[in-house]
């Protein structure tokens, strides 16, 4: 993953071994656009000369940074970025550690409750709202809106800024995203004559039915909590969003799921399960479903973009491709789960933290990191990403712009937990799609109203 030559240039710029003139010469030879080279210069301190390491910025002291790991080599990747930050700000030092994703809530709560939280935290959009409303996070609106950060601010997609905005305040800088879409076994589709599966929900249901034979299943979507982490919700949201529904209404005061179009979309998913076109509900966890797909026993699988890296690294015996769920009456979306760099309000070295999050979120750093771990970025300029991986490049350039996430809300976890049993019950045929959404809406409203 990633472009070794581009990485070399970034490193050379940051260590002052490459001047501006040399950058332009080498960059042009490599086919980099002028805007890409300008971004490199801006992110690496804008100078590229020997003095960039010596001059430094205003960041000083220790910046403690805590983040969930996205790779077994997390420490190695962070060390590289931290070293580059130290080069740019010689008076500063980054002390990095990871939290355990499974214990995310407990670890973050403890960190905040200690009164001495790290300077920078990597938070996801289902987590930051409840800390923001309780005053545990620093309002970064003045920081990201200052003139010196205009280029960095404008480089990030507006929808990402919307996700981190709550009560008209910005609580972090958007950096990374995990995209959830569909993987298809093209050989199974071809055998079943279902190449048009993506044209409509009916076509998808028909193709799933035709592909289901013996212990091969035409369709798989995560249905349980637990081992599948949040996938059961993330797989399901595109169907609701494609129907024009959303978890909350525009002002977050009521549930927005109980609509006729959403009920129809839910019923399609119910029917696919009742057709027995899916593995038995709850029988396979996430790893089990991936194994079934790799064994050629699932035709259409909902999964995360990172799965493509696994399929590329360990090739399978059939042709596969990625796609979005079929379009609904109100469009075709992907679902994305995003991460942000936030600063606790009790952080001791806020100035250092601000410089660090601006540095980390800048194009060269965040794009380099994302390509190491198979994630997406929310930058506008991404054409230089994943030059060696067409699938992930497609996710980044085609799917990310179509992302619709859920609205930020302090009670989002409670809401998701509360509504899921009704959705699950509909998959099991206990209730129909409309009833499931009605019950889900009642539970959501009882929490947020």
């Amino acid at each position: 993953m990633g472009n070794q030559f581009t990485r070399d240039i970034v490193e050379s710029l940051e260590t002052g071994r490459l001047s501006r003139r040399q950058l332009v010469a080498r960059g042009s030879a490599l086919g980099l656009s002028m805007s890409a080279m300008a971004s490199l210069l801006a992110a690496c301190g804008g100078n590229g000369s020997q003095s960039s390491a010596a001059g430094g910025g205003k960041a000083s002291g220790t910046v403690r940074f805590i983040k969930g790991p996205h790779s077994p080599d997390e420490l190695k990747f962070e060390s590289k970025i931290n070293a580059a930050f130290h080069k740019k700000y010689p008076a500063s030092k980054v002390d990095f550690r990871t939290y355990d994703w499974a214990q995310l809530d407990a670890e973050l709560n403890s960190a905040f409750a200690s009164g001495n939280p790290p300077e920078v935290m990597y938070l996801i959009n289902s987590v930051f709202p409840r800390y923001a409303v309780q005053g545990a996070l620093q309002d970064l609106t003045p920081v990201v809106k200052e003139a010196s950060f205009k280029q960095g601010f404008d480089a990030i997609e507006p929808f990402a800024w919307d996700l981190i905005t709550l009560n008209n305040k910005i609580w972090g800088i958007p950096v990374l995203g995990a995209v959830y879409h569909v993987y298809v076994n093209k050989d199974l589709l071809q055998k079943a004559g279902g190449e048009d599966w993506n044209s409509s929900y009916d076509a998808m249901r028909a193709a799933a039915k035709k592909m289901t034979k013996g212990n091969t299943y035409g369709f798989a979507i995560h249905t349980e909590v637990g081992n599948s982490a949040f996938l059961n919700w993330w797989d399901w949201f595109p169907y609701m969003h494609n129907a024009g529904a959303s978890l909350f209404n525009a002002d977050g005061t009521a549930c927005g799921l109980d609509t006729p179009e959403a009920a129809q979309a839910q019923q399609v998913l119910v029917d696919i399960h009742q057709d027995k076109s899916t593995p038995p509900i709850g029988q396979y966890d996430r790893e089990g479903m991936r194994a079934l797909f790799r064994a050629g026993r699932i035709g259409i699988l909902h999964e995360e973009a990172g799965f493509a890296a696994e399929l590329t690294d360990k090739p399978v015996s059939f042709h596969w491709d990625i796609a979005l769920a079929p379009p609904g009456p109100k469009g075709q979306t992907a679902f994305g789960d995003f991460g942000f760099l936030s600063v606790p309000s009790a952080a001791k070295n806020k100035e250092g933290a601000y410089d660090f999050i601006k540095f980390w979120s800048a194009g060269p750093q965040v794009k380099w990191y994302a390509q190491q771990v198979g994630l997406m970025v929310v930058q506008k300029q991404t054409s230089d990403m994943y030059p060696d991986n067409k699938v992930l490049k497609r996710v980044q350039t085609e799917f990310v712009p179509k992302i619709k996430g859920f609205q930020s809300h302090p009670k989002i976890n409670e809401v998701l937990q509360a509504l899921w049993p009704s959705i699950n019950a509909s998959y099991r045929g206990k209730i129909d799609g409309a009833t499931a959404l009605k019950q889900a809406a009642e539970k959501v409203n009882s929490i947020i109203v």
Partner: protein
Amino acid sequence: METHEASAVGRLPARTPAAGRLRLTAEDHRRLRRRHRARRTLQAYGFLAPNLVFFSVFMLLPCAWVVYSSFHTGGILGPAQYVGLENWKEAFKDPLVRKTLGNTFLYTVIVIPVVFVFGMVLALALQQVTRGGRLVRALLYFPTLMPVVLAALIWVFVVHPEFGLLNVAVRLAGQQSPNWLGDPHLALPTITMLEAWRGTGFYALLFLASLLALPRELFQAAELDGASAIQRFRHLTLPLMRSTFLFALVMATIWNLQLFDSVLILTDGGPMNETATIVWFIYKSLFSFGNVGYAAVLSCVLMLLILALTFVQFRLLGRRRAG
């Protein structure tokens, strides 16, 4: 001539009889006894002090804080705000609270008899083993020693739909493989099986220790009198092990009402909240939902239930007074 003698019980009263004979009044005796008892008590508290301090700081004070929190919101990320009985009212109206309590009780009333019966059978069998007993006991106790996370992960493989041991056995018996963790009717029994597998070894060893301490002459006498094995078990073994059973029952109730780890790892409360337990809900309320006061209420409810059940158990199975 008056004499004074030092004694282990302290200073002698001013009046002493002559000729080395010590004669104390009844009041003197009472006073000396009180002093002696006070000194012994102080000594005992002195030795208990470190433990009491630790208990107070890490158990009593947090309990008091939890009760305090149940009448407030917040308190971790910001100052606590008093809300009176609002959290309590919400908890009593919440259907998920009833569901989690129901699941917890159902699990407890199933798992305790299972581990007790299996534990007793194994203990009786081990009592007869003369060779290799230590190895067998170690193997029996191994699941108890295993960390819960490891045991749960092993169980994921045991109940795997395709190659799990359980389903291999089921298929060999000509039946269709059940969806152990995915079927709402089977998920809680599956977790119960895991906990029974983990707990049986502990109770087997506990009962074995009790069995080995029983007076053999009673059993020999009963055998001589013609009592059968079942009669000896029913009329001698069980009554003599009453205190062991009381201890085991109280501890089993306390531990099993707090079922959490295996639920979190295997099912996270699903499918459809069929394995959601009260401690799982406390954890979710506190850490995932950030609802400190509500989690505190649930903790208080659980604490009161455990206290009530323990009281009942002591009343029913506690030592019978003579006469």
